[in-house]
């Protein structure tokens, strides 16, 4: 609990509190890996159990998928740039790149919502079969994480305008940066093992 503040190094690591929180967040990400892995395991086991609903191969569209993926990949990149700007001490850089990230995230969400509605029209809903339950839960949990992330970034942007860059605000941005990249990692696996494999098999 000491309030000693270091004089050098990135702002977010200067206080003990910052270092502890960042470490704690990494551990949380470890737990998140397991959380998503459980969903992936369920998905894998229930694969093919579509009952009377359409099969994934019939519904998945390569075009939407690629757009969504590029949006999220790019947002992960812009988020990285934002943190880079933060470390250079640029409030403006941080804010602007973060806003770009946010917009890309929103775009991704929009496509995802469109996609889900489309599937529902085709007769694939959470209720239609074990396979679709696991699909919507896996993709939906990721989507929910993105939504929370967007809300969180918005709150932080407000705090940034109120307080500028302090060890505490920069710690918060650093942490959400980790979170955002992590969601990208999860998406890569959804992209690969749900969509691509779903279209191949």
């Amino acid at each position, binding site marked *: 609990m000491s309030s000693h503040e270091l004089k050098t190094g990135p702002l977010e*690591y200067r206080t003990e509190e910052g270092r502890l929180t960042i470490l704690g967040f990494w551990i949380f990400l470890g737990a998140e890996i397991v959380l998503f892995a459980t969903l992936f*395991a369920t998905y894998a086991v229930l694969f093919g159990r579509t009952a009377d609903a359409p099969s994934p191969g019939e519904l998945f569209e390569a075009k939407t998928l690629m757009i969504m993926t590029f949006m999220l990949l790019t947002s992960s990149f812009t988020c990285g740039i934002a943190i880079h700007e933060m470390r250079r001490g640029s409030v403006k850089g941080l804010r602007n790149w973060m806003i770009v990230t946010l917009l890309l995230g929103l775009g991704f969400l929009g496509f995802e919502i469109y996609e889900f509605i489309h599937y529902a029209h085709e007769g694939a809903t959470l209720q239609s079969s074990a396979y679709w339950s696991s699909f919507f839960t896996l993709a939906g949990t990721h989507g929910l994480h993105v939504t929370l992330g967007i809300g969180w970034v918005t709150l932080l942007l407000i705090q940034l305008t109120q307080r500028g860059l302090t060890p505490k605000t920069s710690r918060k941005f650093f942490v959400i940066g980790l979170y955002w990249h992590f969601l990208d990692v999860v998406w*890569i*696996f959804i992209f690969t093992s749900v969509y691509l494999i779903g279209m191949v098999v």
Partner: protein
Amino acid sequence: MTDHKKRIPTQHIIGFFLSITLTLVAAWAALQSDLSVRWIIIGIMALAIIQAGIQLFMFMHVVEPESQGGHIPWNMMFHGGVLATILVAGSLFTMSFGFSHDHDGDGHNQQEQQEEHSEMEDSTEHSGH
């Protein structure tokens, strides 16, 4: 990621470029190539793991000196990965017997035999009347 003062974040740019490329390769392999399904799956899963690595090392700086060489973050990611493998592979290993308890094998034969049987039964019954 030692120098944070650099203006151009080269590492991020390389990472971004790589991740886009790998994604395209994966999509191509899955949708366009005529590899066998098995090799597609192995290949694109490998690509996904590499991409995860890119995010971790180039964007998330798991091992940057400020987090003491990322000893603990790295550890958590590693063990998380191990657990993810246990979960997915273990579930498949122990659960996918499900439909092959018997259904592929003689379970179906049983069923067919049974159907024949009852058909016969039916016919004898009919002739009996």
